[in-house]
């Protein structure tokens, strides 16, 4: 059910448990009665406000301030010594004219697309399978979630060994099946896919747990009815599970797009953007500008462009979330 808003809502004021005073009737209408109610409401929720302040301060310092600073930097030339100079859209022009700019956006879009094709369904399928299992559920959930507990850098470097064209695990496995070895990270045709595999493996635990939680909320009698109608596993998934979880599937889709478009650690640690710029992503190029070229303005401009694109997906996500709440 949609929660009423504070301003303009017709809720009765001072209702127990909602913790906020009702709307004032108009300017000058706040009498002693209303002031007392406000004091009582504030008193009742002092702890909550305390926690809220803490969270707001943390967000302001570590999220909002850097975001604002980044926006400001993208319009400045700043050497962090002299007063910064406002340069309008020069930084944007510089990065757009960069030969790697186009590749970075194409690679980022390709990474997100491949991550959807390869990685989007995997956690859902895993969740369905885990949900159907009768034994060792807890153990398997732990195993699936284990990669999430590894620090990302460790997980990525682990795959670096797996991908080694000589003694790497993957080529050893191919060898067992008498298949020719692959270049994995060293080929323009397989490098990006290899990064997607790493990313999928690192993140599938979280997705699986979220889907499992969603599956648990599906009423059991729907499955029972389907079974009575003679539906097998696939038909139960198609006709019950997917329709019942379509909102969470949509939300996860949007979250995945937002997350994968910011891919950085995989190309940074595994390929350094190569071979032949095949794995240079927008976030990686942003890093190059800021830290390798010492051009924070250019990095900020790229960051702002990425932020605008992601805001579109975030807006859709918010809309979908609201629908879900309804």
């Amino acid at each position, binding site marked *: 059910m949609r929660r009423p*808003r*504070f*301003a*303009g809502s017709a809720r009765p004021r001072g209702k127990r448990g909602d913790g906020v005073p009702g709307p004032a009737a108009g300017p000058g209408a706040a009498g002693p009665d209303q002031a007392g109610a406000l004091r009582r409401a504030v008193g009742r929720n002092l702890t909550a406000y305390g926690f809220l302040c803490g969270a707001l301060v943390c967000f*302001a310092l570590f999220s*909002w*301030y850097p975001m*604002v*600073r980044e926006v*400001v930097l993208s319009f400045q030339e*700043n*050497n*962090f*010594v*002299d*007063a*910064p100079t406002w340069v309008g859209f020069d930084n944007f022009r*510089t990065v757009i*004219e960069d*030969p*790697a700019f186009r590749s970075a956006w194409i690679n980022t879009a390709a990474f997100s697309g491949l991550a959807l094709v390869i990685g989007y369904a995997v956690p859902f399928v895993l969740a369905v399978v885990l949900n159907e299992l009768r034994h060792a559920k807890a153990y398997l959930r732990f195993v699936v979630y284990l990669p999430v507990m590894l620090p990302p850098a460790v997980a990525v470097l682990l795959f670096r060994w797996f991908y*080694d*064209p*000589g*003694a790497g695990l993957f080529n050893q496995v191919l060898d067992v099946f008498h298949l020719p*070895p692959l*270049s994995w*990270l*060293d*080929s*323009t045709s397989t490098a990006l896919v290899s990064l997607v595999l790493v990313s999928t493996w690192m993140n599938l635990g979280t997705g699986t747990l979220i889907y499992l939680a969603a599956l648990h909320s599906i009423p059991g009698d729907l499955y029972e009815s389907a079974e009575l109608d003679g539906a097998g596993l696939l038909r139960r998934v198609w006709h019950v599970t997917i329709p019942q979880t379509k909102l969470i599937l949509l939300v996860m889709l949007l979250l995945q797009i937002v997350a994968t478009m910011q891919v950085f650690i995989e190309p940074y640690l595994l*390929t*350094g*953007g*190569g*071979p*032949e*710029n095949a794995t240079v992503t927008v976030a990686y190029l942003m890093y*190059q500008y*800021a*830290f*390798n*070229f*010492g051009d*924070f303005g250019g990095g900020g401009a790229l960051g702002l462009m990425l932020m605008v694109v992601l805001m579109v997906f975030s807006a859709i996500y918010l809309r979908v979330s609201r629908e879900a709440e309804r």
Partner: protein
Amino acid sequence: MRRTLSLVLAAGLGLVAASCGSGDDKPDAGGSGGQVTITVGCQPPKSNPKERAGWDADVAEFQKLHPNITIQSKDAFPCINPDTFQAKLAGGTQEDVFYVYYTDVQKIIKAKQAADISQYVGSVGKVKDLRADVMGVFKDGDKTYGLPRNNYNMGLVYNRKLFTQAGLDPDAPPKTWAEVQAAAKKIAALGAGYVGFGEYSAGNTGGWHFAASLYARGGSMVSDDGKTAAFNSPEGEAVLENLKQLRWNDNAMGSKQLLQWEDLMRMMGSGKLGMMIGAPDVVQGVNNDFQGKFEDYGVTAVPESDGKASLSGGDGYMFNPKATPEKIKAGLLWLEFHELTPGKGQFNYARAKEQGRPVGLPIPDLYGDSAPGKEIIALRKQYATVPVDHFAPYVAAQPNITLKLEPPKAQELYAVLDVAMSAVLTRQNADIDKLLSDAESKANKILAKNT
């Protein structure tokens, strides 16, 4: 809703105002009553107790000589992380006397992120004896921005143990690229995991080594006026053709590519890599941090370089642009004492030998043939603890080699050339002419923007 919106906007505006005002911090006073305290970077880390003890002893000795100066040492490993340089500067935590690689010096000068020390550097007596090309690293026109600590030319680092295993003579390292190819093939044939010759091709390191190889062949990265790229030349083509030969025809470079700095150091340390382009500091790094042993490695001149030129390599110190004149003067006194005086600080070889630290590497070469240079070489010979013969071919080639500075927009050009390097090493049918021509047009755009 409106009130909330107003609050958010007000907070946002406040943050914008705060962020706009962060660039004009007041300079540090630098000291009062004749007392000066300076922060100095690159104190050896605790994990290197011997060098750290030497540093601390030097600080104590210096402070005794100059009671009005207090040195606050800042340790870090590695001494500088270029990635955090800007952040330290922006956050006000950059040392007064900060450590820097040659590769970053010109970028820092262009960005006005170091103090101009021209009017104070004359007080350092040793400056007149320093090699002009070495001092040139820290100059822009007639202005000086820092002092060197280390200097070396590129060479060919090789694993003597592997040479012996492969039936090669470690005392007669390759002098031509044909000899390098033959040696690399033999080393790679030792078995799985052995790599005859290693080269970088990612994270801008590929472009960096392309420049080093190009200079050694007598080529240039940019035209004399710095406005256009000049690497699409017979020398540039030869660099890539040579790698193509080693990688695909000789199969001597291993199958794993996109290597960066640490990869080759690790491979060299593990004893599986035969040769790489590098300076004697590679041997030092492999010995100190990658489980290699000094006696297993040798360094010779870059094949076929014939004393043409070498990409400048080394490190030194620059000054915080907010440092007061008192701090700059105190910093120069410290640098003269610790980095430039034979028998003192970094050149205190007697102490290094006593501590069991390696002595005898032919670096740093700050003075060339001048009196302090000769004195340092004599001290190095007197207290040598590593087999100096292993570096003899490298040392013999040094007098004729000219130090050549990095090109303008170095990191941007290196990023462009990473593409060509990675293409040649990962794609057998890579078209070298096209790669160089593409890189040239991209580099020209970058340079045009710069000029």
